[in-house]
């Protein structure tokens, strides 16, 4: 099957107050795979995500989504073109219930305007029901169906990480950016996230993952892109990258060890 490139970064660069946070980063993400971006702290991973998802504008370089240049587009327009993301530090709608959070994820598929909404025309009622059904289904996929009516602000941290994924999935993206989905999760929760990611890819959604948990990365990734100091250090299949001496050095600062630095347990 020919691999279609759904997302590509071309020589992305950005500086913040004199510090070059990203310098000429490029990669192509093929459809239907899990593409992971790893690197030591401060390597520029979240900055990269912010560039791709339209929260910042690069000083140089381009982002292409399904072949089209989307470089300076704001997040809401990227969402309509099928890009969605989660947040490392969680951006939950705490005053909404869990299912309402996910319902907001369906926003780009909802078509009624403000006048119809004010008058609550029958179409709005039908749409509300459809949205709620799809949202409930998304919640069930991440295992949160029991807490659907709970205010999101009262949920446990691990649940919130999964809630954000369900919410992003509800928008039916082509490409899903997951920003450290397992951060702060215990091994059981991490395993669950792993299963969820596999399920996502099975549904033909391309996943771009930023993650520190190497076990998770090794278990789910098809390709890995290593960043250090804002530059690409290496890219390749998971097994290759694991043995790459430059990568090992970047993580451990040790030269010439034959032990793979990124162990799989």
């Amino acid at each position, binding site marked *: 099957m020919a691999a279609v490139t759904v997302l590509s970064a071309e020589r992305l660069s950005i500086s913040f107050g004199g510090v070059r946070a990203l310098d000429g980063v490029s990669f192509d993400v093929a459809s239907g795979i899990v593409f992971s971006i790893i690197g030591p702290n401060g390597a520029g991973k979240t900055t990269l995500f912010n560039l791709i998802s339209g929260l910042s504008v690069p000083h140089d370089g381009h982002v292409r989504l399904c072949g089209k240049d989307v470089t300076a587009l704001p997040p809401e327009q990227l*969402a309509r073109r099928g890009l969605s993301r989660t947040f490392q530090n969680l951006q*939950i*709608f705490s005053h909404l219930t869990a299912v309402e959070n996910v319902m907001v994820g369906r926003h780009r598929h909802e078509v009624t305007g403000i006048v*119809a909404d004010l008058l609550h025309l029958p179409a709005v009622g039908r749409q509300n029901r459809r949205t709620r059904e799809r949202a409930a289904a998304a919640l069930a996929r991440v295992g949160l169906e029991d807490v659907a009516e709970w205010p999101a602000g009262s949920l446990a941290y691990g649940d919130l990480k999964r809630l954000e994924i369900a919410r992003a999935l509800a928008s039916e993206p082509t490409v899903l950016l997951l920003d450290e989905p397992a951060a702060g999760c215990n091994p059981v929760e991490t395993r669950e996230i792993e299963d969820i990611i596999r399920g996502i890819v099975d549904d033909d959604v391309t996943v771009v993952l930023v993650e520190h948990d190497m076990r998770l990365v090794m278990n789910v990734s098809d390709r890995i892109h290593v960043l250090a100091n804002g530059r690409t250090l290496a890219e390749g299949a998971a097994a290759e990258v694991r043995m790459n001496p430059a990568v090992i050095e970047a993580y451990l600062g040790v030269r010439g060890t034959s032990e793979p630095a990124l162990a799989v347990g």
Partner: protein
Amino acid sequence: MSVLALLDRFRLPQHRLVSLLPLAALILLLPLLFPSAYYYRVAALIFIFAIAGLGLNLLMGFAGQVSLGHAGFMGVGAYAVAIGPSHLGIPPLLSFVLGALLSALVAFVVGRPILRLKGHYLAVATLGFGVLLAIVFTNEANWTGGPDGMTVPRLILFHWPLRGAETWYWILAASFLVGAALALNLIDSPTGRALRAIHDSEIAARVLGVDVAEKKLMIFIVSAVYASVAGSYLALINGYITPDVSGFLRSIELVAMVVLGGMGSVVGSLVGSAVLVILPQALTLFHDYEHLVLGLIVMGVMIFLRGGIVPSVAAALRGWRP
């Protein structure tokens, strides 16, 4: 088959009906307690400010924005029904509608740049805007009668002159119920969910495809129209308006009303309005102390009652369920 089962079976919107029905019942029965026309008038005034409060609640309570100049829009509506018939020969009812449209237009023009601001910048920008409008109303004496104000011609609906506190009571009660129904509709809709989402995290909302700037502008316009309608009614019921209707003090009263009643609560708009309308009436003996008391109320509400009366009572009744 019981009513509830019927409602359930046809998936009828139970929640919206639930909160308006007791309200409607109260409105129907209340006049039985009124010893004189004066009470009808006070109730009518409560509805007027509650209508303005509904709009401001949508903006502040749901969308999480702030407007410290909202009385400016009340002024637009009020002066529209005064100037239209007196200076332009436009019938009062049409002036009423035109006032609302004008408010919407002003909100559209001013809202676009202003809503890019946040926090105290937004607060002060709306404050400045409100005061600017008040200054215009005070200065353009040829149109507005200046600081002394102008009379408002009576509204005549199909040869029936609208006057009498009782008539206004029913008209305003009906208007409030319509306004409340529209607000409740909006809340239970994609726009409503998007607004509530914006309140909690604009970034996440954007990433999910919500055009945050557009939504904020839409709700600003809606809330301006509510204020304009309230202002028009105020002018018509009083038969006279002065620039105070759009003044700084009035804008702050509106905010205090919304916070006091409970941000994000439709019923709260009525409660907040009731408190702030009845208080000066109760204090007529101490008219000189009105500002002093208002200041204390604003401070007290913002320091101690930020949750608002209605949500706090509702939470207490529910017994702190998580």
